[in-house]
């Protein structure tokens, strides 16, 4: 378990370009009979296994510091038991932290009274659940309008708003059905419509697509990205699926055994994994599909070279560039952003980026 001692500080922390909407500071969570004692032990450097064996306390989260940019999708990724679901429940205090601060718009949520907390949940943060958690005795329309009904809005306004968002997520004409009459994918669309109807600027998504078939999951990811283009919500998304994380994340946080192993822009994590655990993790990824031209290009100095075979957009995936080159490694391209040249990319550099850094310890997967 030597990995536990790897400092979390050496992460490439690309601070989100957007101002932080939600900030988690020095968050600890210990489950057990005596969390205060456990907290002391953890601060003294006792690791998760020893804490459980010697003190009977379970380490949930250790020293979590995350800034979630406004209008961005922050993905928290980790395997089961890594504490990701615990972490997301701290944001709206469904779980109380043992120590630490949770700032929303600069105000510490921990200082909120029960009423303020309810208000936060009603109009600041909405949530989408892995198992949908719709009310089985209410129609789809009533479920979608749940948040507004809790706030005590007018029934007409609720139904109009709920119907609008149901249409938006692609559920026309099912308003009068009950959740059990819908498929899993459709139920989760209702879950998303319910979160959107609350009109909260922050949306928490707890493994929202994990219970769905792969094809439906891809659909839902696309739906989310498409909605996000217009809505610019601050989304906190939990997943155990790295492909999903890389697809939708603006900011990726990788969690292991309750602490952050690395966080930053997904491309950066892929190109510069900070420890063998991450290297092992990203080794299985189809890098060509995830990496973008902007991550591997050379910044432009002076005039764009005249011998380039063409132009590619800075957000193009390497996969599409390979397809374009027809496999000719002698090609080179000018990378443009908004049709302005910003860099150059030659196929050799591109191919190099596709080779994952092999973990020094081939047993990393066993951690």
């Amino acid at each position, binding site marked *: 378990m030597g990995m536990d001692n790897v400092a979390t500080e050496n992460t490439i922390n690309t601070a989100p370009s957007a101002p932080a909407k939600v900030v988690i500071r020095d968050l600890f969570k210990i489950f057990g009979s005596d969390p205060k004692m456990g907290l002391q032990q953890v601060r003294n450097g006792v690791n998760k296994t020893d804490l459980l064996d010697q003190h009977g306390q379970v380490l949930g989260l250790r020293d979590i510091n995350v800034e979630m940019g406004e209008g961005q999708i922050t993905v928290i990724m980790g395997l089961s038991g890594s504490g990701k679901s615990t972490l997301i429940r701290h944001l709206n205090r469904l779980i109380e932290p043992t120590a630490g601060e949770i700032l929303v718009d600069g105000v510490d949520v921990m200082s909120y009274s029960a009423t303020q*907390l*309810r208000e936060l949940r009603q109009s600041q943060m909405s949530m989408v*659940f892995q*198992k949908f958690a719709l009310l089985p005795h209410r129609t789809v329309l009533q479920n979608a309008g749940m*948040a507004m009904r809790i706030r005590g809005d007018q029934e007409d306004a609720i139904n109009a708003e709920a119907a609008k968002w149901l249409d938006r997520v692609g559920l026309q004409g099912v308003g009068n059905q009950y959740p059990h009459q819908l498929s899993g994918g459709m139920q989760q669309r209702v879950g998303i419509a*319910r979160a959107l109807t609350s009109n909260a600027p922050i949306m928490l998504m707890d493994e929202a697509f994990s219970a769905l078939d792969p094809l439906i999951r891809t659909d839902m990811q696309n739906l989310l990205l498409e909605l996000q283009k217009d809505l610019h919500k601050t989304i906190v998304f939990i997943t155990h699926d790295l492909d999903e994380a890389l697809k939708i994340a603006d900011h990726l946080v990788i969690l292991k055994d309750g602490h952050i192993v690395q966080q930053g822009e997904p491309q950066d994590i892929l190109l510069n994994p900070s420890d063998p655990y991450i290297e092992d993790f990203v080794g299985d990824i189809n890098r060509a599909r995830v990496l973008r031209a902007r991550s591997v290009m050379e910044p432009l100095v002076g005039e764009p070279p005249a011998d380039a075979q063409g132009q590619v957009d800075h957000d193009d995936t390497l996969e599409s560039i390979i397809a374009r080159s027809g496999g000719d490694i002698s090609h080179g391209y000018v990378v443009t952003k908004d049709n302005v040249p910003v860099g150059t990319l030659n196929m050799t550099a591109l191919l190099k980026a596709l080779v994952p850094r092999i973990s020094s310890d081939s047993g990393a997967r066993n951690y």
Partner: protein
Amino acid sequence: MAAYDWFFDTVGLREWCNASKSEGTMSMADLLAKAKGGASETSWWEVPFPSLDTLNKSCDSVMRTRDFTASIEQAFLGVKDNLKVVLDPITQPLSWMLDGALALFVGTPWWLLIALILMLTYYASRNVLVTIFVAFSFFLLAFIDHYTYAVQTLSIIFVCTILSVLFGVPLGIAMSKSNTFQRFTIPILDMLQTLPSFVYLIPLIFLFSVTESKLYGIAIIMYAIVPVVRLTDLGIRLVDKDVIEAADAFGMTSRQKLFGVEIPLALPNIMAGVNQTIMMALAMVVIASLVSAPGLGTLVLRGIRNLELGVGLVSGFAIVLLAVVLDRVSKASLARINAAQSH
């Protein structure tokens, strides 16, 4: 000499024993022993269990079992009057309700009451077959002149079930919300359920006059309230934790959660409890005929008392028919609720 003399002698309690020596009433065994002219030494094989009565023979200060039961009775009678001052006004509405319902049920013309019952049955169950069965049962009961008795029994069940639900559901909700309260309540519910039904009646007979209908009303409610309390508690505890979490995450108040989520989702269980409550009320109303509860039970009692076999058997059959009717109707409405919620 009695068997345990040595004990009181060795511990030095002889003085205390003799202090209250009096010529009280003698038991038959004492008299026999006296007649024989002194007890012979008892062998170790025949040493009696040191019960109150045995010890009393060695030491007069130890009370006999019959004194013990008498003192319990005295203690009960001692608090009875004070208890009555409190309990009488509280329970008086029960008498009014039972008497009122009885008068209403019996006073309504048979064709109107049966029509109302059939409409209620259909409304609750939405099941034509069940409704036809209920109609058939009531016409049969009326045909063999058991209609009035059956209706009396029904009126008592009606009042007692409503009150059981009225008190039982909130009690069950409170139990589901507090583990401490649940820990205290479960032994009481266990006791109410296991206590032989006759035993309920004994303290009640002393507390209230047998001519008052609340006497049997209380006995029936105490017996019948248990299932609805238990199943309400269970039903609310079984509500899907994910749905509760969603309700919390969207900022529901506990009241919104209770009425908007927990009770509706626990309804199938609560209704199963109501079904059981109805059946137990019927069982108790028959026994309560011992303390002047009117209805089919009085006929059963007459059959036993006067050895009128036919009366006993026919009224027994009428009770079974009524039980089946109540069970089918409440189960059919339960099935309807389940169907509406299936997921």
